[in-house]
């Protein structure tokens, strides 16, 4: 009998209650337990612990269950509302995207036709169209950058005065 026998025996003891062990393993274990008092003690100890622990019932208070159910219901309703809003935003975004793509295509075609009519280079009209499309975004970006905290001498306004002094 060596260390690996004890290890195998303990593993089989651990396994026999839940996973179960094969007949040959069970026979080997029985044989081992008759000669190894330490492993037999562990087997008894596991049985006693299992029996004793299972004899202690734990009951959840009714108030806890009720409060949990109420919280879960409320949160479920909030999540459903949120999902509905996200769905609407998603639909709006897709429609906006389609409208932009469609109107850009039509604008491009109309500008081409217009360039032909007034006999101006199509590149000039195309450039004007691109500027027309990008102008609002550029204006908003410039406005945002002008009011950004980092625009103040390259340092954020939220830095404390002492830190500002140190930096200077």
């Amino acid at each position, binding site marked *: 009998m060596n260390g690996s026998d004890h290890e195998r025996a*303990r*593993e089989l003891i*651990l*396994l026999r*209650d*839940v*996973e179960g062990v094969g007949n040959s393993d069970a026979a080997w274990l029985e044989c081992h337990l008759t000669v190894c008092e330490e492993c037999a003690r*562990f087997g*008894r*100890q*596991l049985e*006693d*612990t*299992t*029996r*004793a*622990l*299972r*004899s*202690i*019932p*734990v*009951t*959840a*208070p009714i108030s*806890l*269950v009720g*409060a*949990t*159910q109420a*919280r*879960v*219901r409320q*949160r*479920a309703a909030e*999540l*459903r509302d949120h999902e509905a809003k996200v769905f609407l935003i998603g639909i709006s975004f897709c429609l906006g995207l389609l409208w932009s793509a469609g109107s850009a295509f039509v604008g491009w075609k109309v500008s081409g036709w217009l360039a032909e009519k007034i006999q101006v280079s199509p590149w000039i009209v195309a450039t004007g169209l691109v500027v027309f499309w990008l102008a609002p975004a550029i204006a908003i970006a410039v406005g945002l950058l002008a009011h950004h905290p980092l625009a103040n001498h390259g340092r954020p306004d939220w830095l404390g005065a002492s830190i500002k002094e140190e930096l200077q």
Partner: protein
Amino acid sequence: MVVTAFSALLSMETEEARIARALRRRDPDVLDALIVQYQHRLLRYLLHLTGNCATAEDLFQETWMRVLEKGHLYDGKSRFVTWLLTIAHNVAIDHLRRRSPASLDEMQDSENGAPFEVQDARPSPLEQAAANEQSARLEAAMQQLPAIFREVLTLRIHEQMKLEEIAKLIHIPLATVKTRLYRGVMALRPALKGGAE
């Protein structure tokens, strides 16, 4: 016999799949029923894990909120109770991280220096249940055990989970589960000596 076993297996799969579908829909009625069905098992696991009645009750609610939010991730292929206790384990770990200790091993020292003292004035469900002397001794011995051992003991003895399931749930190697189980059982030996041996 084979037909009975097959139909039992089929009904179990149907039940888990039904739960998965309901969780994806966030069906409040099914969630209510699940809370009632698993109330005692979940609270027992959390009580043994935290050793504190008030914390266990907080985490109980938090676990069900997490189940509601992450319900779509449950695929219905594994047992629901295993998934539920995995969520509870993660909620407990998050709770401990918020309190500063990095792992369950450190939890023992985190509460005013007294390991797993029940701070609530009213008796915990465990205390109420400790009707006989051996149960009281065992409860005291369990309170003294580090949380990592109590968790493995609870999952194995109460939930009758397979060792692989426990390893997967706690994210530890199988050999560590066996070691913790062995050491946990042996650590409870003095508490049982009078009654069992």
